[in-house]
């Protein structure tokens, strides 16, 4: 047991902290008013930010250098996250590519797919959105009905995806399509990589709860997807076996999508808010409690990373963290609104953050589904 950061990690932290401070200042000077990355203009602003990160080697610290990373460990990733969120840098618009698609590419991709796609993800050249959800496949991902019909030299896609985060601004979509028309549920699905500029693909952005155009519907109408539409095979894993590829990503999404660093930064903001405005004794205790919950998440993540580095599979345990961070995020923002009093009604970072937090128990698998997973797969209760 050793809970000290190594000298290398400490040095990386110092470098990163300085880099972030300088570069955020420069970037902000360039762009003028900083907008939400979930609006078209804000997305464009943040691509400039993402390219800065990439050029300095910070866009995917834990990846091999050949793919644009810096060969870091998961510990380095953790340090990166702590410093990144601490600095007040924006949400990562490349998140779906880096945190959801890439782990599946590392695990299931061909050498060609990895060589070609990963560097473009790290560099924010290809901008990936997820194509999991459909109008009738939300919590029930296996309800996918979008079809991929095999034809000579490629696939023909039909159907609709929806709730595709930032879909209106992305260049590519990854997702499941029903490739075996006679199949049901988890079988007969293929994980496809789809450029969004194909003929027959229409993307319509729509607004999230907070008013930003953060969602899209993606319509496929006899859209021909050539086998090499992404410069290499568009199938990730095996044909008709996409479910297992998607599931491996789901576990990553739940377990490591939201690092403790985000919540450490949020709770630090709450301490500032308290220092500024004060509050009553009951709220003081509530804030101390939330601080403890955040810190418990940090500590649990240290255990999780230790286990991952020991070769333990994250698996269903990821559902434990998903419920924790998503409910914690709401609690943190509710405390902020409490401290703001009547000003809580004003549009601002805290009210925006509150609305975003409320999506946490819904996306990446509802918390009801996560609790089922905990009960059935972690505790072994009967289905």
């Amino acid at each position, binding site marked *: 047991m050793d809970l000290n950061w190594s000298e290398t990690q400490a040095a990386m932290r110092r470098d990163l902290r300085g880099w972030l401070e300088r570069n955020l200042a420069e970037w902000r000077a360039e762009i003028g008013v900083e907008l939400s990355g979930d609006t078209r203009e804000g997305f464009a602003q943040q691509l400039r930010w993402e390219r800065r990160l990439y050029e300095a080697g910070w866009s995917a610290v834990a990846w091999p250098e050949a793919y644009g990373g810096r060969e870091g460990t998961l510990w380095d990733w953790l340090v990166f996250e702590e410093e990144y969120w601490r600095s007040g840098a924006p949400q990562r618009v490349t998140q779906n590519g880096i945190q959801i698609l890439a782990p599946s590419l590392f695990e299931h991709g061909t050498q060609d797919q990895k060589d070609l796609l990963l560097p473009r993800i790290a560099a924010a050249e290809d901008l990936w959105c997820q194509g999991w*959800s459909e109008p*009738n496949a*939300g*919590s*029930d991902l296996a*309800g996918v009905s979008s079809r991929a019909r095999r034809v000579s030299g490629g696939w023909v896609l039909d159907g609709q995806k*929806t*709730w595709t985060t930032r879909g209106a601004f992305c260049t590519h979509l990854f997702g499941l399509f029903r490739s075996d028309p006679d199949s049901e549920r988890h079988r007969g699905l293929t994980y496809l990589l789809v450029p969004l500029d194909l003929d027959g693909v229409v993307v319509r952005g*729509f*607004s*999230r*709860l907070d*008013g930003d155009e953060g*969602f899209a519907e993606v319509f496929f109408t006899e859209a021909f997807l050539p086998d090499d539409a992404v410069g290499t095979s568009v199938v990730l894993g095996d044909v008709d076996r996409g479910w297992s590829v998607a599931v491996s990503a789901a576990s990553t999404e739940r377990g490591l999508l939201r690092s403790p660093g985000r919540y450490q930064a949020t709770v630090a903001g709450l301490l500032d808010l308290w220092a500024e405005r004060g509050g*009553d004794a*009951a*709220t003081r205790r509530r804030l101390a409690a939330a601080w403890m919950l955040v810190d418990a998440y940090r500590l649990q993540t240290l255990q999780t990373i230790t286990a991952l580095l020991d070769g333990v599979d994250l698996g269903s345990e990821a559902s434990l963290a998903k419920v924790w961070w998503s409910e914690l995020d709401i609690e943190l923002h509710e405390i902020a*609104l*409490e401290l703001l*009093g*009547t*000003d*809580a*009604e*004003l*549009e601002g970072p805290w*009210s925006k953050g509150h*609305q975003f937090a*409320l*999506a946490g*128990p*819904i*996306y990446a698998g*509802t*918390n*009801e589904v996560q*609790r089922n997973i905990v009960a059935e797969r972690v505790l072994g209760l009967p289905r």
Partner: protein
Amino acid sequence: MRFSLDDDREALRATARDLLAELCPPAAVRAAWTQEPDPSAWHALADAGALAVLVPESEGGLGLDETYLVGVVEEAGRAALPHPLTATALVAAPLGVAGTTVTTDLGASSAIVPAATYAEAFLLRSDDGLRLYGADEVEIEPVETVDSSRHCARVHPRGAGELVTGDAAATEAAFERGVLGTAAELLGLSHRMLELTVGYAAQRHQFGKPIGSFQAVKHHLANARIQIEFAAPAVLYAAYAVAHGRGDASRAVSQAKWLAGNTASVMGRAALQCHGAIGYTTEHDLHLYLKRSWALARSWGGAGFHADRVAASIGL
């Protein structure tokens, strides 16, 4: 001893409910997000006498008490009516201010006033009591809030206005009527969110069955329904206590606001969670009611403020 709305009171409520269903549907609330609210529902309420329930008959009002009005205000909450019904009919009218669209926020830390961009008159606290200002006597500094249909602004008086009352007790009573109205609106909003969510849960299928057949969804909605069951009588009692000048009226309105605010919070969380991503878009109607409930839960004193008032009243 008898505790229920009688036929007359129910009839007034039903009138309000019917006209709001017709004239203030979700589309009207949605439209009010980007433009001044359509006045037809407001005019219809005025025609039905709803704005003058507390105005004496001698002055052209209905000459009734708060137990008649509370159901109407609850219906306005259910419809998320953008207009300032609580301020106009419940706070201002008994102070002799009638026949005009009044806004006010006599909340604990008054700062943001709703309906400010189109109200005809503003009832504001001043050093010597409550003063009424015409729209040309105030400076409006619009602010962006989470619920744009409220048309909030910070309001700065320019002229002297007109003293409505200098009596501290009357000012406190006006504040308490505002708290009561806000509680009733919150209760109505909870009813609406429950209807929307029950309807959705019965119709939306996942895993081959309606999501409303899953126990987790059932229990979310049962919990919300239970909260409503016990907030509703407290809101009605608060109206009764205010109407009859009962000794516990002040506590009763705080209790009503606390319960109705909690209820809306439990209900809102359940509504959003049971709708899933579909409720998490501005294309769906849920957000119209949800955001209104967030705004009102903190208006006219939040949960802590009212709990502390109750604590003091029971000797804690």
